[in-house]
């Protein structure tokens, strides 16, 4: 599957569409929704690891955003970035409320076949992915957010800085620290610190 692209709309388009949505234009709502639902779902899914909970939280993000859409003010922050901030906050609330920061197996996701059905190479890849995701979920929320935005969405440091409300320099620095912390978590989980080579 191709990586998602974010911020492909001019900010002006965002503002115009949001204005229409505020005035009750159903097509504008649909447009904003279609442009963002998959990326917000992806972000939440990788943060919490459960498809059902990701659907629930994605719905909450859009209900909150569209319920308060008149509060969105374009000040250099695209609508998508605003949604990411809501998603980040709601995910943090979810962890706080449910108190179940447990490691969730990737097998919970229905898109992935059960491990026993996989050929050896695929099984190895799935196991690697599981270790990596568990390691990511052990990081502090801001570091998780940074890594997912960078690798799921292929965003630049500048775009991530807008979403996270930091400077580009701060993002670069945080990214480097996050990779080091991630490496340590992988070592702790796998015991060796080595993710096996994937032979394509």
């Amino acid at each position: 599957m191709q990586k998602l692209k974010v911020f492909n709309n001019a900010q002006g388009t965002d503002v115009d569409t949001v204005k229409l949505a505020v005035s009750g234009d159903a097509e504008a709502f649909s447009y904003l929704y279609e442009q963002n639902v998959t990326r917000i779902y992806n972000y939440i899914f990788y943060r919490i690891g459960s498809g059902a909970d990701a659907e629930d939280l994605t719905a909450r993000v859009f209900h909150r955003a569209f319920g308060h859409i008149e509060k969105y003010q374009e000040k250099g922050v695209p609508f998508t970035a605003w949604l990411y901030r809501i998603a980040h906050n709601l995910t943090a609330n979810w962890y706080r409320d449910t108190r179940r920061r447990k490691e969730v197996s990737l097998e919970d996701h229905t898109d992935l076949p059960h491990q026993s059905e996989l050929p050896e190479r695929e099984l190895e890849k799935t196991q690697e992915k599981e270790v990596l995701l568990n390691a990511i979920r052990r990081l502090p929320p801001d570091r998780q957010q940074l890594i997912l935005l960078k690798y799921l969405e292929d965003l630049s440091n500048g775009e991530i800085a807008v979403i996270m409300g930091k400077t580009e320099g701060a993002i670069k620095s945080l990214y480097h620290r996050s990779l080091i912390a991630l490496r340590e978590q992988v070592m702790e989980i796998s015991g060796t610190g080595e993710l096996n080579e994937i032979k394509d």
Partner: protein
Amino acid sequence: MTTNGMEQAGSKGLWGLEEKLSSLLEPVTPGPEFVDALRLKLTQSPSVILETGKKKVIWMVAAAGMVTGALLVWLLHRKRDND
């Protein structure tokens, strides 16, 4: 490898971790039934906010509890005074 992937962390993208992140983190797709159902809900009632209901219930239960408690204390006092 992504364009922004190997821009720092000299030693082979921090021990190849960046390459692993690029290859293993693939976007997932939400179910079409979920996407369609949520779109319908949002376009039919865009001003509905789900989470406020939960807070209201909590406040109502707390208020009812306090009123009941106060009533109980008052009744016990009254009964004791009568005795």
